């Protein structure tokens, strides 16, 4: 379980002014939940994810993992970034093996596991390719496999499909769900796409813009396994999407008021 306890984040802008990015966020994420954080750009949703990852320390408040305060990154929380952040000097296999090797897994075993993971994300045959030679969708598949390879308890996904074209994005969403439904890791998923959040999640946290606050938490009560074609026709799904879109519109209008 992850607890975010009254976390606030203040950034200093280049003009030496304090900018409140996150304001008193409290949130509990149950084990095995797929939780999306949804909000307009600049609402601090990625920052919240970085705080859970231990990459950024909150200005105030505390984030806890299994009751222990998070003080830094660790292999129990695996990030997947929009920018992929693959190691360009390593092949696909080298990238995926990196984590297990660092964790002290023997070479042969790490290689066998990594090859299986590469196959699972649909990249069999590309083991010896370098990141430079892969498309964006393929890179993100490698990044996912690389993170899954060291068995984090929590996946931290920072707009992972944000840089991909619509078609690739849909395919990766489907594949992610398939993979997730096998082992039900806890997933914290940051996105600005309402459809994506509703399609994937058990829970959607809607945030307001600047300073980022939680506006509403919506439980997505749709059956699993979810199939995209069925879901798109499902009035419940459609209602979730419309309702959440309306919430986001409201937050944008709040901002226009003086």
């Amino acid at each position, binding site marked *: 379980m992850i607890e975010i306890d009254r976390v606030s984040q203040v950034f200093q802008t280049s003009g030496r002014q304090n900018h409140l990015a996150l304001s008193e966020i409290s949130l509990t994420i149950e084990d095995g939940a797929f939780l999306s954080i949804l909000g307009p750009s600049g609402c601090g949703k990625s920052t919240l994810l*970085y705080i859970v*990852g*231990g*990459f950024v320390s909150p200005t105030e408040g505390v984030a806890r993992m299994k009751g222990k305060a998070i003080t*830094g*990154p*660790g*292999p129990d*929380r*695996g*990030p997947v*970034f929009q*920018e992929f*952040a*693959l*190691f*360009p*000097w*390593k092949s696909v296999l080298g990238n995926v093996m*990196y*984590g297990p090797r*660092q*964790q002290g897994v023997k070479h042969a075993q790490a290689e066998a596991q990594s090859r299986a993971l590469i196959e699972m994300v649909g990249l069999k*045959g590309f083991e*010896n*390719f*370098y*990141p*430079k*030679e892969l498309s964006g969708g393929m890179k993100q598949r490698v990044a996912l496999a*690389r*993170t899954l390879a*060291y068995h*984090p308890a929590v996946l931290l996904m920072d707009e992972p499909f944000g840089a991909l074209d619509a078609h690739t994005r849909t395919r990766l969403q489907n594949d992610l769900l398939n993979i997730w439904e096998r082992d039900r890791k806890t997933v914290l998923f940051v996105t600005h796409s309402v459809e994506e959040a509703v399609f994937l999640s058990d829970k959607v946290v809607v945030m307001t813009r600047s300073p980022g606050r939680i506006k509403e938490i919506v439980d997505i009560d749709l059956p699993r396994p979810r199939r995209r074609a069925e879901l798109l026709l499902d009035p419940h799904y459609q209602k979730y999407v419309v309702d959440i879109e309306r919430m986001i519109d409201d937050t944008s209008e709040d901002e226009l008021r003086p």
Partner: protein
Amino acid sequence: MISMRALVSRSAPLLACLGLLGIWQIGALILNTDSFPTALDAIRAIPSILGDKESLINILASLRRMAIGFSLAVAVSIPLGLMMGRSRGVASFFNPLLMVIYPVPKAALMPIIMLWLGVGDLAKTLVIFLGVSLPVIYHSFQGAKAVEEKMLWSGAAMGLSATQRMMRIVLPAALPEILTGCRTGLVLALITMVTSEMIARQSGAGNILFNALDMGQYDAVYAMIIIIGAMGIGLDAAFEKLRGKLVRWSEPGFDIPLSFA
């Protein structure tokens, strides 16, 4: 099979050399003065220099100083540049110092260095060291600064310590940029090597050149220029080959044939 185009592009440097020698030859024949021997005369003088034991010892001494100066500079500059690139504190400490040293021609420091360290190997190696250091520091700094934060975060999540991230993420990620600096450094090593021997005339390739000039042996002067030039081209080509191997993954035009064994 080598295609016609590949053949042309591969032999282009050779053709350029031959072209230059041709122009030289014609120019020298037209001018017809003692101080400008023809290319053929200069080339004919090369074997006697390379066959002379004394000259060979001099040239090897030069190369040794260059190798030592270059290696030491690289060994010091890469870690320093990388640390500057990743730590604002280290950067703001060393930056002003380097900014002052950067525009000063290193050979201009030679008289002071000679005053302190004499005219021997130490002074000359130090000048080479200084000449090589700056481009290598600068490029290592730029390379380390450009390393994507998220790449380091990914490493941290896998359990890499700060030192491991430096050695195993920053270093390889910055390697293409570092090697660009080393390539510039290698050419500068050759330049500072010759200039140092020109100022502190005691031994070395530069010394042979300027002694020949003093004695009016113009064939030997030009022959020596060809030898030093060839050393530069050879070293650069060898380094490029090594660089290509090390950072194949970063080359823009790099592609593996789309087939699997």
